């Protein structure tokens, strides 16, 4: 077991990693009410079979195991030993990769953002012992790159008139039956009025994503100050459950604030 003793930044790096893991776990288990029933009852009681998926990625057992596997990372909050952090990064990367490819969970973006943040954590915990003077700079830059790539994925797929004029966003919003703010708006506004307002809301969402695409070229604090409220604001349009997707990214940005901006 490898215990860090030489690097003077150990405590700070452990703290940074813990922030990332804490937000990651918060997002991962945010929908536990849904997933505990869906994965541990529904997909076994009413299995769906799509021939496209190999049997491992159709198996309820693999989905169940890899959903709860991240609970094994909890010791790192009590034992500041490098082994636990490296083990955690492996568990988080493997779990998110499997659920991203699993028939019953592949559509949930939680596992996509969790995967890229877990890859960042893997890089972080494997490099933090290298006594590299540029380590903090790379860590912050890579976290911004992860955020940028995630939002670039959202941005480019919306570069079409149906998204820009709000038609798609409004149609999805009108069909939803959840979200406190959404329910109130649907109860108090006509469909025409909602469609009219979404002409502007859609543009704001797309421009907000475009802003985060440029994150690696912007000052770190500016990305946090504007980017985190933007991510939190998306929940107004959907539901708080969207935080399962966004918490790990928010955690990644917050953790970067504890790193030095220059060597």
């Amino acid at each position, binding site marked *: 077991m490898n215990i860090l003793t030489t690097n003077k930044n150990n405590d700070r790096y452990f703290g940074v990693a813990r922030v990332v893991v804490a937000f990651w776990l918060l997002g991962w288990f945010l929908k536990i009410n849904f997933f505990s029933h869906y994965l541990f009852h529904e997909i076994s009681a009413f299995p*769906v079979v799509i021939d496209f998926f190999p049997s491992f990625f159709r198996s309820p057992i693999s989905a169940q195991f890899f959903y709860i596997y991240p609970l094994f990372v909890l010791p790192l909050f009590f034992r500041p030993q490098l082994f636990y952090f490296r083990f955690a990064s492996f568990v988080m990367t493997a779990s998110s990769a499997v659920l*991203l490819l699993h028939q019953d969970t592949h559509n949930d973006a939680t596992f996509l953002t969790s995967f890229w943040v877990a890859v960042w954590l893997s*890089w972080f915990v494997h490099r933090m012992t290298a006594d590299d003077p540029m380590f903090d*700079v790379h860590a912050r830059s890579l976290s911004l790159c992860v955020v940028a790539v995630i939002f670039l994925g959202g941005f480019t*797929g919306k570069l079409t008139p149906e998204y820009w004029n709000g038609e798609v966003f409004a149609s999805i919003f009108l069909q939803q039956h959840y979200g406190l703010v959404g329910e109130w708006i649907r109860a108090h506004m006509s469909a025409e009025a909602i469609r009219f307002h979404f002409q502007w809301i859609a543009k704001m969402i797309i421009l907000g994503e475009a802003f985060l695409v440029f994150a690696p070229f912007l*000052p770190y604090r500016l990305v946090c100050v504007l980017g985190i409220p933007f991510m939190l604001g998306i929940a107004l349009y959907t539901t708080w459950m969207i935080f399962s997707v966004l918490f790990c990214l928010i955690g990644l940005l917050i953790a970067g604030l504890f790193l030095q901006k220059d060597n």
Partner: protein
Amino acid sequence: MERSPITKSIKFLSSCPQRSTSIFYGALFLVFCVLIGVGLCPDIQKTMMRKFHFMPRPFVQWAMLQFVPSMYNFKNDFFESLQPLPIDARMEDRPEVQHFTVNHYPLRMVYFYYSRQTFVFPKPVYVYIRTTFRKQEITTSYMMVSSSKGIQIYFLNAYEYSDNK
């Protein structure tokens, strides 16, 4: 721009190369290039649209595309009917067809639910999912059969249209 996190980082990396850091930047840059291609290149657009229809084969090819972010991408429509329909039919106009606009992975509308019981029907149900992006369209059809063993989803047909010539 000169003092931005990425330019500082790349400058340091070029003066002091590190393998794992370079690999991570390289992987992110590869995904970045694919995503820029979604905005600019019709072939990459089509590949990403086909991902939502489980069309890239074998599974490994689809699996690699899964790591490329695509939240709320393209316009996705989901149609459900008790009667088989021509795949290129205009389904929005048919009152007997249920229609939903979906943010991504439209086929999930038949299984990603707290309760799947509502999708257990005594007879086959026909599902059509359509993804459109600019001048491209992909529609795939499926037959959904419920039994005591669960819900089997059979791929029936695919229709692709492109006006990028």
